[in-house]
Structures are given as C-alpha cells and as structure tokens.
C-alpha cells in the first residue's frame, strides 16, 4: 500500500466516454493490499471495462464477502453502491438485491476462500439459479490474510512458501460453475489485461450468471518456485483457447477474419463476441466438450484460459420466476399490497 492518495492530476489526453466520465472517474480509493497484488490488476481491469462499456457508476452494485479479494471493491468504482457481506454470503445478499432491483449491474467479487471454502454452497446455488450478475473470483490459492495457508483451490502437490506440500485435492471452480449451470464461464489471468478486459466486458453484457475465475498471484505468499499460482508458473502454462473481442453492436464489426478462425456469439442485448480461436477444435458452445477439454488439459498441468463456455440463449432468475420488469422500489403501496381480493385469487389457484 501507499500512504498517499493517488494524485488527481491525469494525462492531458485522458478521454471521456459516452456518459462523460474519464477512466479515472471509475477509480476508488488507493489500494491497501500488498504492492504487486494481482487483485489490484483485476481492479484496474474492471475500471477499464466499465469505462469502455460506458457504465454509469450509480447504476452498479458491487458486492463482496470477506478476504483480500473482498476488500477490493473499495478500490474501484468509488461512486457505485457497495455491500461488504458476511464471509461467503455475497451470493445470497446479491440475489436478494437483484430480485428487489433488477435494473442495476451486479458485480460480485470474491476470493478462493470466500467462494470455494466457506461460501461454496452459496456459490453453487447462485450459479444454479442464474442470477444476472458478473461473478469475479480472484483466485490465488492461498489464505493471504492469515499468512498463506493453502486454500481449497491450491493444486495438489504444489508447494507453500515455507515448503509444505499440498496433499488435498483442489476444487476447480470452473468445472463447478459449468456443472451448476452458469451460462457464461471464463478464466483469466491478472497479469494479462488484454485478455481479461474484453472478458469482463462480455460478462457485463451477458444476461445470466456470468462467472470469471481470475488467477491472481499472491506476491507475498504464493509467488515462489513450486507454486502453481505464481506469475511465472501461470505465464509458462497458460493455454488460452481463444481471444475475445467485444463488439457493442453487430453493425460495428469491421475486422475481417479468415474462415474458421473466429466464432461469432451474438448475445441477448445485441452485443457480439468475436472469439478468435487459438485452439482449433475448441467449441465454447459445447458444455460437455468444454468440461472434458478443461479436465484433460488441467490434468496435464495447463492453465486453460479464455471464454470457456457461453450459452447464447441464456435466461436469468427473473425470467424463471416471471417477475415484474420494474424494480420493486419503484412500485407503489397499492401494487405491493394489492389487498384481500388479490390474495383470495392466488389462494384459489392453489386449491
């Protein structure tokens, strides 16, 4: 961390987006994490993505649990709504908020402890229910706040900073998310913003449960030889299956791609994802294929990154429950409490 606030002075050429904000307007307070933490890079990627997407800061709710990663919402989108929940309970609080007001962009930020240990149940169910959100899991494989014990996502056989070998089997959050029914599943690396920023943008545009697992090295406790979540290890073993180009509307596609090199994904809101294939046979629409591919390559020690699965026709919880379009806080007392007659009608239907 630093004691100084980041100076407000900015580059003379700093541009405004369509909603008249500069990138700097999406920043939060100065980070108190260790210098070099991968999480700070992810915060910077979120800032960049929100600026490029012309997101209005007051239309965002950022939610988190407990942990290093869950501190980060303080360091981006300083003018957005935020909620620091109980450890591992971000998904249920976010689900509630989402049901009450569907008009906000929901950003859930969590860590491997928060999501794969104490909050694994919550994580599984929020994916299952298809809550319309961006779930970013900042995954460093250790408990940084308690001096670097292995977390549930640490690979079996990897070495701790003090030399201990992890004997337990890891939880692969990507496979879990796929299994639980997430409709947008991606993995990124904090050290590669060129890949990560478009993935976050695509996730923001996705309607449904979008899950991004971001490998984020812990420079203090998990960036040594023998770690499988270090900068060096991830760079060496990174197997990106594709590169995402996020295009706001179909009309704006100007780049020519060679036949068979690119997959076009048109999402619900008309946005288009162009996936430049890096692995010829990888099909991000094939859920079973994706699961097999990931399992196989991970067994070989590779870190598979990119947009791994996307469902073009995904729906969300509101659709499943057939809820009203308007946020609940905009409804009047009469609509919220329609009276005995309405209750009687409902009861009649259930008899």
């Amino acid at each position, binding site marked *: 961390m630093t004691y100084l606030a*980041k100076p407000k*002075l*900015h580059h*003379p*050429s700093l541009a405004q987006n369509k909603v008249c904000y500069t990138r700097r307007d999406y920043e939060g307070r100065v980070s108190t994490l260790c210098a*070099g*933490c991968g999480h700070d890079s992810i915060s910077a990627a979120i800032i960049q993505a929100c600026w490029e997407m012309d997101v209005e800061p007051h239309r965002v709710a950022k939610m988190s649990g407990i942990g290093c990663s869950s501190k980060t919402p303080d360091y981006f989108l300083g003018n957005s709504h935020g909620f620091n929940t109980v450890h591992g309970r971000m998904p249920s609080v976010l689900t509630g908020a989402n049901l009450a007001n569907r008009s906000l962009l929901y950003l859930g930020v969590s860590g491997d402890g928060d999501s794969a240990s104490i909050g694994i149940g919550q994580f599984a169910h929020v994916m299952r229910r298809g809550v319309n959100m961006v779930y970013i899991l900042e995954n460093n494989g250790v408990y940084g706040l308690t001096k670097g014990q292995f977390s549930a996502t640490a690979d079996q056989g990897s070495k701790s900073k003090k030399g201990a070998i992890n004997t337990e089997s890891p939880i692969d959050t990507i496979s879990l998310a796929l299994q639980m029914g997430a409709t947008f599943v991606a993995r990124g690396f904090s050290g590669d913003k060129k890949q990560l920023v478009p993935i976050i943008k695509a996730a923001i545009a996705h309607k449904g449960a979008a899950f991004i697992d971001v490998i984020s090295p812990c420079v203090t406790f998990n960036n040594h030889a023998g770690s499988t979540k270090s900068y060096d290890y991830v760079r060496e073993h990174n197997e990106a299956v594709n590169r995402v180009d996020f295009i706001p509307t179909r009309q704006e596609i100007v780049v020519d791609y060679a036949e068979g090199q690119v997959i076009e994904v048109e999402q619900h809101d008309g946005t288009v994802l162009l996936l430049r294939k890096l692995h010829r046979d990888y099909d991000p629409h094939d859920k079973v294929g994706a699961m097999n591919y990931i399992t196989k390559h991970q067994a070989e020690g590779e870190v598979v990154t990119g947009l791994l699965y996307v469902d073009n026709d995904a729906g969300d919880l509101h659709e499943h429950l057939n809820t009203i379009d308007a946020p609940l806080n905009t409804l009047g007392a009469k609509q919220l409490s329609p009276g005995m007659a309405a209750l009687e009608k409902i009861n009649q239907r259930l008899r």
Partner: protein
Amino acid sequence: MRPTDTRDPDYFHKVVDCQWACPAHTPVPEYIRLVSAGRYDAAYMVNWWSNVFPGVLGRTCDRPCEPACRRSRVEEGNGEKPQPVAICRLKRVAADHKGEVAAQMPKPRPRNGKRVACVGGGPASMTVARDLALAGYQVTVFESDPKPGGFMRSQVPRFRLPESVIDEECGFITELGVEFRGGTRIGSLKDLLAQGWDAVFVGSGAPRARDLDLPGRKEAAAHIHLGIDWLASVSFGHVEKIGRRVIVLGGGNTAMDCCRSARRLGGEEVKVIVRSGFDEMKASPWEKEDAMHEGIPILNYHVPKTFEHEQGRLVAMTFELVRAEFDGNGRRTLVPTGAPDVRVECDDVLVAVGQENAFPWIERDIGLEFDRWGLPVLGAASLQSTLPRVFFGGDAAFGPKNIIWAVAHGHEAAVSIDKFLQGEDVNERPPPMVTLVSQKMGIHEWSYDNEITREQRQVVPWVAKELALSSIKVEVELGFDAQAACKEAARCLNCDAQTVFLKDACIECDACVDICPMDCITFTTNADEAELRKRLSAPALNLSQDLYVSDHVKTGRVMVKDEDVCLHCGLCAERCPTGAWDMQKFLLQTTKAGPGCRSKTTLGAAA
C-alpha cells in the same frame, strides 16, 4: 528501440527540464527543496555555485527554465490555467532570506602565478573572475564604470534591482582576491596584450544601441534618446526627469525598462509603440504585463515614419499602420494596411530597437578575426578567439542575450582559460559531475516530499502602485514571504528524483502501470520509436520528451515510460513489490575551472 542508456548524463539531465533549459544548468529542484525546508543559506549556495548572481537573477532573469517547467505540462487539461513553478522568484527567496553566507564562501586555491585580465565588469567577466580566482589565478577586472556589475548596474532599473544586491554579489567575488579596476576603459587590446597577461577575457557586452535614421531625427535630437544610454544615465543619476508625453520605440525588455523608468521620471502619458504584433514582441510576457499594469499602453503594428518637430522641438511622431502576412514558409512580412498614418504627440522619444556589438578598441591587425557581422570568430564551446590567449563571453561573444547566458559563457570561458594555461586542449570539454542516489528511507518514505499539491502559482506581492511610481528607486516586487515560498516550492515536482527501472527485478505484475496517475508506463512488444509512441497507454505526442525503454523483460516485452508528464510522485516505486522501480536523486553540476576540469592524463603526468 534500443534500451535507454541511463549512464549518459544527458538522459536524466533532460528529464530535469528546468536544469536542462538553464544555460548555466542550475540544479533547480535541489535548491527549491532547500527553500521549502527553510534552508535559505544552503539554497543560496547551490545557486551561487551555478549562476553566481542569485539575488540579481532572482529578480531579472529571462527564466528559460519556466517555459520548460514540467508543472505547466502536467496541469494541461486538468481544469485550471497551467502555470510553471515560479522558479525565478524562489531563487530570490533564497537570496533575500539567507543569513550570513560569507563564512560558507570557498577559499581560493593557492596562487599559481598566472595572471588573467578581464575586460568589462559585467556578469560574464565577473563569472570568469570568480571561477579563475578560486582555481588560483590572479585576475584583474577592467571596467569603465566605477563599480562592477556592467549591464546589471547600468541598464537594469533600480525599481527592479536594488543596487545593494549588485554590491553584495559582486563583493563576494572581489572578496576572493579579484582585483577590480573601476573607471578604467581599455582603449587598445594590443596595448593590453603587451602588458604580458597570460590570458585575456573579453566580456565587454553589446554596448552600442541601434538608432532610427528617420526624417526629423537630427533636428529633434535633443529629445530623442537611445534606450540603453538613457537607462545608464538614469541609473547613474545624470538624468532625473523626462517630458510628460513619452513614446518608447521597440518591443524588447529594454523597451519595457525604458517605459517603466519614464513613468517614474515624470512621464504621465507613456506609450510603447512597436512594429511587430504584440505576441511576437521580444520582451518576456511578464515584463509586458508589468508595463501594462503600470498603465502603459502597447500599440502594435505601427512602423515609425517621421519625427515631427517645430522650432527644433520634438512635437510628435508619425506611424504607418501595417498588418502581418505569412508566406508558405511561415515567414512574416509587414504589409501596409493603407489606413492613414497615425500621429502621436510627444515630448520625448526613447529608441530601444536593439543593440549591437562594437569593438572599436580591438585592432584588426593583431590576428584576431571577426566575421562579416562584426563578431569575433570563436570556438563554439571553448569561446577561444583566433588569438589563442584571448577569450570572449557574454553579449560580446555572440551578440545580445541575457545575464544567465553571460554567466554560462563565463563558466565555459574560465574552463577554457584554465585548460589553455595548463597546456591542455580547450576543445576537449570536461564531463559534468553526476550523482544518482536512491531516495528510499522506508517502506513509504522518500527523502523528498512526493505528495502532489494542487496549489496554484503564488502571486508575487507588489508595493502600492502610487508608491511604486513615485520613485525610480522603490523596488516594485516585494518577493515571496516564507509561507508563500513554501507553498510555491511545494508545486515543484522534484523532477530530479528519477524513476530508475531495473528490468531484472521486474515480475510484470502491472502494479506500476495501474497506479501511475499519468499513464506514463506501458509494457509492450518493442518497435521503432514512432510506432512505440502511438502504442502506449497514453499516446506520447511530445517529441521533445524522451521515451525510457528497458531491455526485454521475462515475457519478451519491454517497459516503455513516457517522461513527458511524469509527476515523479514515486507511486510506481511504492507499488512495486520487487524494487524494480526506484526513485533516485540525480544531481548534475557542470564542471568549473580548476583541477576537476583537466583531463585525467594530464593530471596523472603532473602527479
């Protein structure tokens, strides 16, 4: 691009824009930090070593450092009006607030038996005298006026520069054992050389004013004065008043001094009238502002045509109105507008349309060559003339410039004279003395204040206008008090705290890229400079500012830092987990005359 060679002293020197722009390369951030720490004596001495006349320059310098100051670039596009740090006025603070510095003055080396004569007692000569006296030479300064100072004393008006400041700073030099012979005009270089001086330095300035040969010039001569001569007469008390209506011709700083002086000697309606456009005038913007502040209008695009006179008395001047036209090459011509001539009534005219060099006292048959403009033929760096033991500097060398250039020439000429008299090649220039030291004191602690203030440039207080105009001797500017000086000093970005990148330590975590408030840092694949400049986090459009490029980091990319708008806030170094970034203080001092400027081989042979 090839990796930047930071061992070349010029690289980091250029990053310190003010120091690079200063002809004498004064370590500006160094003394500004001392001012903010209240260490005025030390700040004064830093200046004294570099520019010899801190008190004089703190009031009168042309300030090439201020247009170069990074502060105005970083404030660009950030709301308020971009303004450089008031470097010049902070120098004055050091001079005004210092205590007794005599004890800190260096002791001259033992006399080496060599004698050097300096012609003229202005800033160039006095600088040569100081540097050589310290190096052990016996120096004699010849000056036609009774006291040393030259231009500083004779032409800079007292309301800008009190005489006591000149006395004190020239006194520091004569105290070193320099012999000053006032009231002695050198009439012949041949005779002077015949007196057996080991070397002669000519710092006689550009003493001849240009005149305007227009109809009526001769008839009305009694009321037409040449600017610099008139200023000198005012300075020495020979002239004490001027007519009620005064026209000042010319657009340079001398014209500004003339009009403001006239305003104080009874000129109630003083006008500056200039051929060129207002913006192309040679005067510094602040000098124009000061003149206008005193109620002096500046009329531009007026070409003087005639002096009107009645019975031998000047009554008016006529002017032709012109406009500027630019050809394809941007060359300007002044074209008459066709409007009727303008007649401006006046009682006196001051002509300040330029100065020329004049060397009537240098014989043309002694082997000293002059070029076709009447200037001596000199080695560009050595300032040595074609007569090997004669050196030039200041306005006498390359025509009229200013005090700080004169000082810079003085240092270089002193080095040349020292090398020449030690039997060395004067064209072999000594490299500067450079140190580069880490400023890290703790995890978040630097030995400089890295917090960036949003404070605006402080305004220098003035005496009340009525009081200022009442006498030529009342100094107009009052200088900053300690509080204002502290606020102004805090605006300095400490550009000498260099961002030094050690690529082997870098783990490419992007922490520096993310924290940099000015988007200066980028990791990218290498390319040629034009391509790289486009590819950075923020485009590097200022071609006068270098890119700092590292060798390949682990992923094969390179680190590129655009020096242009770096705040030197040190956040890159604070956020770096491995110490790949470090803030290191770069201190460059030009090498002065003495053993330090001599080549190592000669030194070895002497030992």
